[in-house]
């Protein structure tokens, strides 16, 4: 037996997994070769050293960090969590989280509505002024301001040059007609913002610009994953996926659903971008939402790159099992 061959068998020799003939041949070689015998001894010593290597004590902050993270996670935990310990630490206020959030949402909507109601008359130009703005707009088909003034009166339109309002303060009559109103800013058709409009109100001064639907652009990054969910868990699967991504510090780029008329079995997709460190945790979350077929699930070490360095991206496609 040559030295190279003998040294390749040393680990197996020490594990006693060599067959009898191999063990005898190696033993014979070791008896006659001091160098290989020394290698055998030192290899055994290295293994013994490793076996006796004591664990490094964990820093004290590890436990506190884990407990803090668990508490944060527990706040978002679903009902029926299996951890009694974590559940017991739930704060008293968290019981009122949903009512608080609902009340906050109502207040927000009410305040926006009130603001719109209160602010609309203030920005409306006086009747004598609005005609020119209106005619200016009419000459710019398809370009209007979101805060469009009310429709013009014919006589007022005749008395004012179209497109220019109070540029030099000359239309005194208009100002006198509405002395209590604040001086409006100078508007020209050219200075108005250009916003494509696909839906415009015809019976009020407010115009709602609506962006035309755009097709979902093809992904140049990330990976598709299919999650199969049971029919009883189908509802809200997209939302649970999005919540998981948000909880892990990611963002939700898009949530898609097939037409609702197709019922609970409709397919859906959620596109998320996560910090790379959260990718594995996200896959764990997906397994809680449904079944990820093993042939689809990437290897644990395989993180699909996101749009930026340090990010991972997934398009999670929800299917009915």
């Amino acid at each position, binding site marked *: 037996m040559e030295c190279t061959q003998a040294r390749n068998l040393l680990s197996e020799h020490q594990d006693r997994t060599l067959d009898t003939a191999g063990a005898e041949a190696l033993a014979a070689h070791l008896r006659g070769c001091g160098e290989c015998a020394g290698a055998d001894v030192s290899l055994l010593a*290295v293994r013994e050293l490793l076996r006796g290597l004591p664990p490094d004590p964990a820093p004290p902050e590890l436990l506190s960090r*884990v*407990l803090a993270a668990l508490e944060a996670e527990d706040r978002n935990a679903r009902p029926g969590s299996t951890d*009694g*310990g974590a559940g017991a630490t739930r704060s008293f206020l968290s019981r009122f989280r949903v009512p608080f959030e609902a009340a906050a949402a109502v207040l927000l909507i009410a305040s926006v509505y009130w603001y719109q109601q209160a602010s609309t008359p203030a920005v409306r130009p006086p009747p004598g002024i609005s005609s020119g703005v209106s005619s200016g707009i009419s000459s710019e088909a398809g370009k209007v301001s979101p805060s469009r003034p009310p429709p013009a009166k014919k006589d007022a339109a005749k008395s004012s040059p179209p497109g220019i309002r109070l540029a030099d303060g000359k239309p005194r009559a208009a100002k006198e007609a509405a002395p209590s109103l604040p001086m409006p800013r100078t508007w020209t058709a050219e200075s108005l913002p250009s916003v494509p409009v696909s839906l415009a109100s015809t019976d009020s001064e407010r115009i709602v610009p609506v962006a035309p639907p755009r097709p979902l652009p093809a992904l140049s990054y990330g990976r598709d994953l299919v999650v199969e969910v049971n029919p009883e868990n189908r509802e809200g699967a997209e939302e649970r996926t999005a919540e998981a991504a948000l909880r892990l510090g990611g963002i939700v780029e898009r949530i898609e659903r097939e037409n609702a008329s197709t019922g609970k079995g409709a397919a859906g997709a959620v596109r998320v971008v996560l910090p790379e460190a959260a990718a594995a945790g996200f896959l764990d979350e997906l397994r809680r939402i449904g079944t990820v077929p093993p042939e689809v699930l990437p290897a644990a070490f395989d993180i699909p790159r996101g749009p930026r360095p340090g990010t991972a991206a997934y398009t999670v496609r929800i299917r009915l099992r």
Partner: protein
Amino acid sequence: MDLERPAGKGRPVDLLVEGFRKGTPGSFEAIVRAHQDRVYSFCARMLSDREDALDAAQEVFLSAWRNLSEFRGEAALSTWLLRIAANRCLNRIRRRKSLSEREAPWPEPSGGAEEGIIFQPAGGEADRPDRLAETCEMREILTEALSHLDPGSRWMVLLSDVEGFSYEEIASLAEVPVGTVKSRLHRARMAMRRLLSPVA
């Protein structure tokens, strides 16, 4: 702390896991306390960076918390945790390497280990690894030597020789044949031998 007790004729039952499943308050904290040293040590030796190791160990326990209800007890809880730790650490090493090439290339474990020697023990008897073990720096020396192995071999050495995993367990975790595990482990051990004992 005796964490396991026999469950009749069957496998030992981890009392802490049982407590966690029953919803006993503080049971998961007890699990963390019981296993944090092993998990953190493994992560620190794999990653050679304290903060990275802390983050990885935290991820391991969070993942365990989420999935402990699915833990079947086919292996010891520590084995299960170390499996998670191995995955997390390898993820981090891959990410670290893909993001930047700051780190020096790993020396080939099967050869050229002399280039990676990081200490020069005195000659003669002191060159023997068992003598080195007598020094107070033994732990640091071993950790340093381990850090010179390539990550793909390092985690196998840690799991096999430090944590006592069987070849079959490592093969199942690495999704490679047992023979591949044996040969990679042997090359890594020989590299460790060269790193620790230049004259051997």
